[in-house]
C-alpha cells in the first residue's frame, strides 16, 4: 500500500494555496484560463457556471468551509462520474473532468460523507470522436479491474485455507500469487481509502497506536516467514477475505475516468515499484517483491494499452517511448524468473537492483506524461 504521508498532504496544500493567490478575485463565470470556479463551504456548493460545453472541463474548487471537502460529479442516474477528495479548508484545487453532453449534478460534501449541497448543470454540444474511444477504454478498464479483483479473491481464499490449516509451506507458496490481482489494480483499490490500510498495510508504516489494529496480507507474511507459524492468526485470514469482499461489493458504483484514474493510476503503479519494490521494502519478510513488481507493471501496461489509440494520435513519440520502456522492463524482469515466479529479492544483487531501478525510472518518466497526453 501507499502510506498517506504528511509530506504529500502538506505538499498538495501548498500548491493549492499558491494557485489561490495567483488566481484570487474571480467572480466571473469562468476564469481567464477557462476554469469553472466552484466555492464550497460546510453547507453550500456554488458553481459559477451551470451551462457548459462538452469536453475537458477544469473545475477550480475552493473550500472556504472549516471541514475537509469532497467534490463529486454525478451522472443523471446518480452514479459518480468523477470525484476529487481531500480538499482541505482554505485550499483550492484544479480538477479536470472530461464531460460528455448530458445532465449532471455537482456535489460538495463537507466532511467527505458523500452527502451535501449540490447544483445541477447542463453540458451540451461537441462530441469529439476521442471521447468515445476514451469512454470505451474506461469501460474496458473497469471490466479488467473486476476480473483482477475476482482473481485476487479466489487466490486469497486458497491462501487463507492454508493459513487456517497452519500449513506454513503451502501458505508461503500461495502468498505472493494471492496478491497479484490486488497489486495489478492497486490505485483503484486505494480509491477506497478504508480498505487499503486494512489489507495491505506494512508494519513499518503504522503509527504506534495503529499497531494493535494491524491486519492484512503483511501481518500473515510476517507470521509465515519470521515466526514460522500462523497458529492463532486464522481470524486475520477471514478478515482479509471479508475486506476484499467489501471492496468487491463497492465496484458496481465505481466509475473510472481516463485521465485521473487510468493514466494517473498507471503513474502511481510505477511509483509503487520505484519506492516500494525496487528497494525491497514491500515484502520485507517474504522477499517476493518481484512478483508485486511484475503485477504493478502489468497493471500499468494494461492501462496504457487501453489508452494507446488516443496516445498514439496525440503524442506518437510518447507512445514510442512507452512501448520501448515497457519492453525493457519486461525483458529485465524475465532475467529473474524462477519457476512460476521470481527469485527471492534478497538474492538480487546491487548491480541488478541498479539496473532495475534505471529501467523503472526510464518507464516512470514517460508514464507520468500519459495523463497530460490523454487530457489534451
Amino acid at each position: 500500500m501507499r502510506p498517506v504521508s504528511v509530506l504529500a498532504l502538506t505538499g498538495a496544500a501548498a500548491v493549492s494555496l499558491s494557485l489561490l493567490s495567483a488566481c484570487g478575485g474571480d467572480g466571473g463565470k469562468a476564469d481567464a484560463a477557462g476554469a469553472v470556479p466552484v466555492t464550497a463551504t460546510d453547507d453550500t456548493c456554488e458553481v459559477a457556471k451551470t451551462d457548459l460545453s462538452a469536453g475537458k472541463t477544469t473545475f477550480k474548487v475552493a473550500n472556504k468551509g472549516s471541514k475537509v471537502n469532497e467534490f463529486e460529479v454525478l451522472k443523471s442516474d446518480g452514479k459518480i462520474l468523477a470525484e476529487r477528495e481531500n480538499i482541505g479548508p482554505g485550499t483550492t484545487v484544479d480538477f479536470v473532468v472530461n464531460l460528455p453532453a448530458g445532465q449532471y449534478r455537482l456535489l460538495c460534501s463537507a466532511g467527505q460523507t458523500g452527502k451535501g449541497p449540490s447544483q445541477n448543470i447542463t453540458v451540451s454540444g461537441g462530441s469529439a470522436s476521442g471521447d468515445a474511444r476514451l469512454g470505451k477504454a474506461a469501460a474496458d478498464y473497469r471490466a479488467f479491474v473486476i476480473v483482477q479483483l475476482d482473481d485476487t479473491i479466489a487466490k486469497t481464499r486458497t491462501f487463507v485455507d492454508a493459513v487456517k490449516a497452519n500449513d506454513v509451506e503451502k501458505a508461503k507458496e500461495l502468498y505472493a500469487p494471492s496478491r497479484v490481482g490486488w497489486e495489478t489494480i492497486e490505485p483503484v483499490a486505494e480509491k477506497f481509502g478504508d480498505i487499503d490500510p486494512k489489507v495491505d498495510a506494512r508494519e513499518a508504516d503504522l503509527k504506534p497506536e495503529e499497531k494493535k489494529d494491524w491486519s492484512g496480507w503483511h501481518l500473515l507474511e510476517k507470521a509465515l516467514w519470521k515466526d514460522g507459524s500462523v497458529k492463532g492468526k486464522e481470524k486475520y485470514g477471514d478478515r482479509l477475505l471479508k475486506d476484499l469482499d467489501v471492496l468487491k461489493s463497492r465496484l458496481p458504483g465505481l466509475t473510472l475516468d481516463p485521465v485521473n484514474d487510468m493514466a494517473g493510476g498507471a503513474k502511481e503503479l510505477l511509483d509503487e515499484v520505484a519506492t516500494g519494490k525496487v528497494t525491497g521494502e514491500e515484502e520485507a519478510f517474504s522477499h517476493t517483491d518481484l512478483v508485486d513488481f511484475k503485477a504493478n507493471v502489468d497493471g500499468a501496461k494494461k492501462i496504457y494499452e487501453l489508452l494507446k489509440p488516443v496516445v498514439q494520435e496525440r503524442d506518437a513519440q510518447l507512445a514510442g517511448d512507452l512501448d520501448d520502456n515497457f519492453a525493457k522492463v519486461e525483458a529485465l524482469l524475465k532475467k529473474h524468473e524462477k519457476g512460476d515466479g521470481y527469485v527471492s529479492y534478497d538474492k538480487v544483487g546491487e548491480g541488478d537492483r541498479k539496473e532495475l531501478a534505471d529501467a523503472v525510472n526510464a518507464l516512470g518518466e514517460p508514464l507520468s506524461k500519459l495523463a497530460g497526453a490523454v487530457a489534451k
Partner: protein
Amino acid sequence: MTRTRSGMSRRRMLGFSGASLLAGAAAGAGLDRVALAEGDEDAGAAVAFHGAHQAGIATPVQDRLHFAAFDVTTGDRGRLVRMLREWTAAAAAMTAGRPVGDGAVGGPPVAPPDDTGEALGLPPSRLTLTIGFGPTLFEKDGEDRFGLRARRPAALVDLPHFPGDNLDPARSGGDIAVQACADDPQVAVHAVRNLARIGFGTVAVRWSQLGFGKTSSTTPDAQTPRNLFGFKDGTHNIGFDDTASLDQHVWAGKGDGAGWMAGGSYLVARRIRMHIETWDRTSLREQEDIFGRSKGEGAPVGERKERDRPVLARMKPDSHVRLAHPDSNHGMRILRRGYSFTDGTDGLGRLDAGLFFVAFQRDPRTGFIPIQKSLATDALNEYIQHVGSGVYACPPGVREGGYWGDTLFA
C-alpha cells in the same frame, strides 16, 4: 538569495583580512557587505551558453559544483541524439535563468511540470553546463555502440593506472559527463536534476559529485582559494583571458587529429580523498615542506608573496609544487577547476572529504598523464588517495541552432 552568505564572499573576506586592516576595522554588522563590495564576478548574472568554446572551462570559476557521469542505456543512436538536443535546449534555458520547457507552473494541471521548480526566483548564478564524452561512448567491451569508434580522438586515451590509485568503478568512468558550476548550489543541483530527468530512458546516472568550494581560480588577480589541507594550491593557473595559453594548452586544435574536437577540450576528473585526520596531526613545518609553500601567505619556499616566482631548487625534491610545476613538466600546463568536497563521514568516523580535481587540457597525453606521473614521488601522497577517475572529450561550443555534440554526430 542571500549573496552575502555565499562561500565566495566569506573567502574573500578572510582573504584580505591580512592585507587590509581596514576590512578588519569594519568588523561586525558591516563585514559581509565589505566582502561583497570587494565584488565577485556579478554573481547573479548569466554566462552565455552559445559560442566557439563551451562555457565552464575558461569561465571564471564559480563557487559550487555538481558533476554527474551518465551511462547511456539505449543502443539507439537516434534516441541519443534526440536527448542531446533536448539537453541542449534545457541547458540554454537554465543557464539563462529560465526554467525548462513550459516551466515549473502554468503547464496542464494533470501533467507533471516540465521544470522541477526549485530554482524558481533564483538568478542565473553564472550557471555553466559543460558536456564531455567518455571513451566508453565510442567503444565499450569491444563494441562499436553508436558507430563512433572511428571518431574516437587519439587524445581520448584510457588513463593508465597511477601508483597509489584505488579507484572505485562505481565512482569512475561514464559515457557522458556533465559539469554544472554555479555560484548557488541549488542552481547547479537543479540543472543536473533536470538533465537527469530528461535523460531517463536514454541515460542513467552512474555517479555524481557535489563540490562546495572552488580550489582554484582562473582570475589571476583574485585570491587563490584554499583546499581542505588549508593551503593555496594551483596559484599558477591559466587565466580566463590568457588567450595564448588557452590556445596552446587547453583548446584542441584543428590539426590535432579529431576535427570534430577543434575548439573543444579534454576533461580529467579525479576524486581525491584526503586523509584529513592524519594531515591535521602533521607539524606546520612538514605541511609547508610537503607543499613547498607557506601556509599563511602561500609564498613559495624562501619567497614572501604567493605570486613570487618559485625557485624549485630551494624546495624539497618531493614537494608538491616542485613536482607539479610546469618547469618540471616540459612547460606543460593544464587548466585546473577543482572543488573541495565533503560527503559526510565514513564508517570509521573519518571525514569523507577531499578534492574533486577537474582539469581541462588540449591533450591528456601531454597534460594530466605526465604531470600525474611526475607526482608519483609527491610527499603529499601519504595524505591522499585517488578513489575515482574519469576522462572525457568535451566538444566545442554550441552554435545557435546546434546541439551538444553535433560536430561528433553529424
